[in-house]
């Protein structure tokens, strides 16, 4: 593939999740040159880490696969992984972006055979399972990774393990001398699609995420239910590894809270409703899900999904924000304390496992973006005052995949207008 020469008519897309992919592909399919920059070694973002998608409960593989196929078939997109934007200067139609590319230590020669991973013994926490298990220090991020190319973790470079990896590679793809690179690009418009991160649950002191083993977050629960996840798809109590059948979901864990995130994260009600169906899938009538909520926000057409879950006898709804959680130190069991708003009854409810439906916060907040941008009070991006930098997908607000893709498509259109104007100006000159 010949790399397109970056010019002011190029669109820079930062973040390779579903939103960044969408902006890149929509613009590229209109004939525009695009550079897609992803911090991690793989595209796909957070959606690749979900077990199933609401509302249809399909696997995330299909959606991603279609987009990756579009990507492979398009010569207008250049993908840079393990790359971050250090600075952006200039104005609409004429920006200079500086990128830092970290060494992957594996070249394009890699056939993804996995021999290097077999050869090394060092292990590191697996970020794709939110650190719930370990992985080898030479790794492929996950089965859906794109590019399908291994990574050698910098921690084993210069150690006997690093040498073992190099020796094991039959095609000589491992380059332990690879260095960090800084490159500069001229671009006309920037789409900022860096997505979201789960709110730090340990900050919600009364729920004891940092103290009680059986309190987990919704993103961890997604991984737990996935057969490729740390428990092989089994819903287990981290305290003792026993099956968890009586599960509580606590809504608005960090969201709609002036002490934490002031916005409604919009997707967590649907995420918990979806996760009750994982419990049903695992245990049939034998599992029990209880959703503690302020109000259920299944927006728009998602209401149908909510109605369906309401009919499910294994799911109970309690209108109450849990006040605090206590742990039985012997059994690891949890007691939820609170008052039910429908009747003001006080409860002390025992559960095996508590899933905190944590809020979404922008993974790069407005203030941390190396350019002048306008952000809302939660840090979600509204755009630049000059009009050449746009927020796309979850970077612009808490959105589900469907709405992220819609928003990203609109962003592609805006970016195209900017580079078209820049092109017209160049011709006039």
């Amino acid at each position: 593939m010949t790399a397109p020469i970056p010019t002011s008519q190029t669109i820079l897309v930062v973040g390779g999740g579903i939103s960044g992919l969408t902006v890149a592909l929509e613009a590229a399919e209109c004939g525009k040159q695009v550079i897609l920059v992803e911090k991690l070694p793989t595209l796909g973002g957070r959606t690749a880490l979900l077990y199933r998608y609401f509302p249809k409960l399909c696997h995330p593989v299909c959606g991603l696969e279609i987009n990756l196929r579009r990507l492979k078939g398009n010569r207008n997109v250049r993908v840079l992984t393990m790359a971050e934007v250090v600075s952006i200067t200039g104005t609409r139609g004429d920006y200079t972006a500086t990128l830092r590319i970290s060494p992957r230590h594996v070249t394009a020669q890699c056939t993804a055979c996995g021999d290097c991973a077999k050869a090394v013994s060092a292990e590191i926490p697996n970020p794709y399972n939110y650190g719930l298990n370990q992985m080898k220090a030479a790794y492929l991020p996950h089965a859906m990774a794109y590019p399908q190319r291994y990574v050698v973790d910098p921690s084993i470079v210069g150690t006997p393990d690093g040498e073992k990896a190099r020796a094991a590679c039959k095609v000589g793809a491992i380059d332990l001398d690879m260095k960090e690179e800084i490159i500069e690009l001229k671009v006309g418009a920037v789409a900022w699609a860096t997505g979201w991160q789960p709110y730090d649950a340990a900050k919600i002191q009364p729920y004891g995420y940092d103290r009680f083993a059986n309190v987990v977050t919704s993103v961890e629960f997604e991984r737990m239910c996935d057969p490729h996840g740390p428990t092989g798809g089994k819903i287990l109590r981290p305290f003792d590894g026993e099956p968890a059948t009586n599960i509580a979901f606590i809504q608005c864990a960090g969201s709609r809270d002036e002490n934490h995130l002031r916005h409604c994260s919009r997707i967590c009600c649907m995420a918990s409703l979806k996760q009750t169906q994982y419990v049903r899938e695992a245990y049939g009538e034998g599992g029990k899900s209880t959703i503690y909520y302020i109000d259920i926000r299944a927006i728009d057409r998602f209401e149908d999904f909510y109605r369906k879950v309401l009919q499910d006898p294994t799911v109970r709804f309690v209108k109450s924000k849990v006040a605090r959680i206590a742990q039985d130190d012997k059994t690891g069991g949890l007691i939820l304390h609170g008052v039910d708003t429908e009747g003001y009854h006080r409860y002390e409810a025992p559960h095996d496992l508590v899933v905190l439906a944590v809020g979404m916060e922008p993974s790069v907040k407005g203030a941390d973006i190396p350019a002048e941008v306008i952000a809302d009070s939660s840090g979600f991006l509204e755009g630049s005052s000059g009009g050449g930098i746009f927020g796309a997908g979850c970077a612009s607000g808490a959105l589900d995949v469907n709405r992220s893709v819609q928003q990203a498509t609109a962003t592609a259109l805006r970016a195209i207008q900017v580079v078209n104007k820049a092109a017209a100006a160049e011709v006039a000159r």
Partner: protein
Amino acid sequence: MSDPNVSAVEQYRNNFLREVEENVDEGQWVKMCMQCGVCAGSCPLGEHWEHSPQKLFMMIRAGKREAVLSTNSMWMCTSCYNCVVRCPRQLPITQIMHGLAAYAHRLGLAPKMQPTRDFSIQFWENCTRTGRVNELRLTIGLYFRDGLVAGFKKGWSMRNVAFGLLKAKRLNPFELFKGHECKDRKGIQAMLKKANEIDARKKRPTT
């Protein structure tokens, strides 16, 4: 017009929320409550309250004037601030509880013998009389609040403590008669009178 309760009812007929907003400290926050229940579940004394803060806020909005102003619930607040630090809407719940109690007291609707209220009144009268708290008289007042027999019983049960305090010179029996005063008793009382006037002007339901 002399009974503040009667005039308040007339003025705010069917709009207890507005009455609270205009007359209760921090009352303007009541409408911000989203009924999540965190305050109710966080109160260490919660199970002893007839109505939790969450419920009181809903009752105010539902116009349950008599029930709110005559309950002893808000008098149970110990100012631990657990609810305030946890409320997702950052309502100053503790302050509202005290504001409600004070308003009910001003209107003469607060439960007469509620211990917190009774103590507050006795304490206030005790310390404003001389400008200093007379602990002996205050203690005796509290022992005998439920009658003569109960007072003597309570006193008898505490006799060892009393003798200990006597021996340590921490209790002076002569305080019972006159008691010591602050240097400028008249000055303090004049100041309090003025403060009361200002407060009454601020809080009196406007007609």
